[in-house]
């Protein structure tokens, strides 16, 4: 096998020439006002943003994640970029043809005639939601699926009551930043007793140069409802680092279930570690109601740096939180990811399955907190964190934190680190399977427990991404 490690071609690295409108570079109160005005927001929203901005200004940069990075100049970022031509009646005919060409290249279909996949999609490019499919169809069930900007205009009370309820602006540095300058993301509302009849999905695309993307997503599942939501992300191949700082909030009421899956494939930088997306994300779900359930599944293959801990606050008695994660890093990528399970209610349960795969010169850390508060009688957590190393120059790290304040709480933790064994490779080789195919096979087997949590077609996509990320990782 060749020793030359070439970067696998990042399939989504193209840029599209779309007429866009930008905010001035830099961040101050005027930037916040500009964004709010562009979105046509009510005063309360602007005030909330400005308050968040003040909080952010007084916060220090977090430095506890095990990451190597140059300081970010927050005044050298453009905080708003949106396509000039937007469809007015949510009709595909009015979408800029250049955007349609972009969809084609990304291999996504928002065509409502094509219902086979049974997926409704919101497409967010840079700072703006461009199009949401199947809106009408979903509306018949009372389901609201639209961009957060639309929701602020059309359903102000729902947004006002829930935005920032799970992730307070002061929660952390990037959450405060996001609260000040968030641009677009999805809003989902599932009414009482409704099982959402299709997968809801948002495709996040960074297109413009020097811009940051500040996604804000809010999902509310009323009593006894169910929704499965999936997000995917890609960005052009560029030399400079770009920032994606998202906040996602989920709220599940009594007996409600939210399943949230992510396939993250932001541009990871080149083989020498130049360029790539900084992916700093706060994702948290509140199991507010009795027997509510929130399940996070993530497949993280992209980004130069990933820093995210999708978490569950298990407030309702007998509520249940899950976190399934596959994080793959190659070349000079860094991932610091994991979850927090905060047990508040009685008989709450959580389950964590994390699979980290490192190759090249990359570093992959699992960081997780299981916290059981004093009133969390009979809480139970099971955590399993497995790491796999490919080659000798990468690293895997596990940082499990456990805080149990109630004597009846029970925490089980299993961890393992393995190398792809010479023996396993030789066994595969002997059956005619070459090194590269053998690594895919072994790694896919390693991740199987997580992949089976994904909707079928996305599981296939995830496997493909894994292969692309690990291309040429055995030398």
């Amino acid at each position: 096998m060749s020793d030359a490690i070439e970067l696998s071609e990042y399939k989504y690295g193209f840029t599209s020439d779309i007429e866009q409108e930008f905010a001035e570079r830099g961040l101050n109160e005027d930037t916040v006002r500009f964004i709010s005005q562009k979105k046509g927001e009510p005063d309360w929203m602007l005030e909330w943003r400005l308050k968040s901005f003040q909080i952010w200004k007084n916060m220090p940069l977090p430095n506890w994640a095990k990451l190597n990075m140059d300081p970010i100049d927050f005044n050298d970022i453009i905080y708003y970029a949106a396509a000039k031509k937007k469809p007015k009646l949510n009709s595909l005919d009015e979408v800029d043809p250049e955007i349609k060409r972009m969809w084609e290249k990304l291999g996504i279909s928002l065509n409502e005639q094509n219902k086979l996949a049974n997926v409704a999609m919101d497409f967010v490019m840079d700072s703006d939601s461009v199009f949401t499919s199947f809106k009408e169809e979903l509306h018949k069930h009372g389901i609201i699926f639209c961009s957060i900007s639309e929701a602020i205009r059309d359903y102000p009370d729902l947004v006002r009551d829930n935005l920032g309820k799970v992730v307070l602006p002061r929660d952390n540095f990037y959450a405060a930043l996001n609260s000040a300058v968030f641009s677009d993301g999805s809003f989902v509302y599932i009414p009482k007793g409704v099982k959402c009849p299709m997968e809801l999905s948002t495709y996040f695309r960074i297109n413009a140069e020097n811009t940051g993307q500040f996604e804000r997503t809010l999902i509310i599942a009323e009593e006894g409802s169910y929704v499965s939501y999936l997000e995917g992300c890609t960005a052009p191949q560029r030399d400079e680092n770009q920032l994606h700082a998202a906040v996602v909030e989920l709220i599940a009421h009594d007996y409600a279930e939210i399943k949230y899956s992510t396939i993250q494939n932001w541009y990871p930088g080149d083989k020498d570690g130049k360029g790539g997306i900084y992916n700093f994300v706060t994702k948290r779900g509140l199991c507010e109601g009795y027997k509510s359930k929130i399940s996070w599944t993530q497949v993280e293959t992209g980004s130069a740096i990933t820093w995210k801990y999708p978490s569950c606050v298990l407030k309702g008695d007998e509520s249940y939180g899950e976190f399934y994660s596959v994080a793959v890093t190659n070349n000079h990528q860094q991932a610091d990811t994991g979850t927090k399970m905060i047990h508040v209610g009685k008989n709450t349960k959580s389950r964590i399955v994390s699979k980290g795969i490192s190759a090249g010169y990359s570093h992959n850390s699992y960081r997780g907190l299981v916290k059981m508060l004093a009133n969390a009688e009979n809480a139970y957590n099971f955590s399993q964190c497995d790491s796999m190393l490919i080659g000798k120059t990468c690293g895997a790290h596990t940082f499990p934190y456990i805080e149990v304040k109630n004597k009846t709480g029970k925490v089980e933790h299993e961890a393992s680190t393995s190398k792809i064994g010479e023996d396993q490779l030789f066994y595969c080789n002997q059956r005619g399977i070459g090194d590269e195919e053998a690594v895919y096979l072994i790694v896919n087997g390693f991740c199987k427990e997580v992949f089976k949590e994904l909707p079928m077609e996305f599981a296939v996509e995830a496997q493909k991404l894994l292969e692309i990320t690990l291309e040429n990782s055995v030398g």
Partner: protein
Amino acid sequence: MLSIQNLHTKIGDKEILKGLNLQINKGEVHAIMGPNGTGKSTLAYTLAGKDQYENTAGDILFENQSILELDPTERAHLGLFLCYQYPVEIPGVSTINFMKTAINEMRKAKGQEKMEAKEFLELIRTKAEIVELNKEFLTRAINDGFSGGEKKRNEIFQLAMLEPKLAVLDETDSGLDIDALRIVANGVNQLRNSENAFLVITHYQRLLDYIIPDFVHIMYDGRIIKTGDKNLALELEEKGYNWVKELA
């Protein structure tokens, strides 16, 4: 089919094979017997091309072509199969998936298209019968939590699926109870034909009651020191390995 000529093999600084010669023609079954530590498994591994084994002299010809420079994958593509003494576990990868990948990689090497799903399933069904494996077993992660007998039956199943020209069975009988031994041996007997060949490495004569060899070789200190027919195995059983040391 296979011609091993004056083969010398080292692991690290230690020479294990010290001028081994062996000739196998198609349609033949050869057995190699010998005490522990004489280089039987080294022979199996070096035939398959394992990394740590260094061939310092001699040659291995497979169908008149030297394979010393070929890596394990290329040797497998030529039709060389090793039945492992200790099959390797691959968590999360089912035997079916493993075999599908193996078959398609073999076909790719020959410039053939992938096997159709229907044909593959039919192949699985017929080959599983040979070693009396049920379908549920084939969906389990390969060798992960298998008993000794299950691992060996799985090896023979893979042998049946891949239909190699030459199969090397490395102490396939070790750790098998009599029922598993019978199943494994029956499997091999069903797969024997005039076009392929088997090299059966074993410690005990017992396996050769079920798989009748055409030739029996006694190996000692890195060389083959005596060759005979199946009666040699019986003679060895009777006289014990001390007799071998006297021969050497």
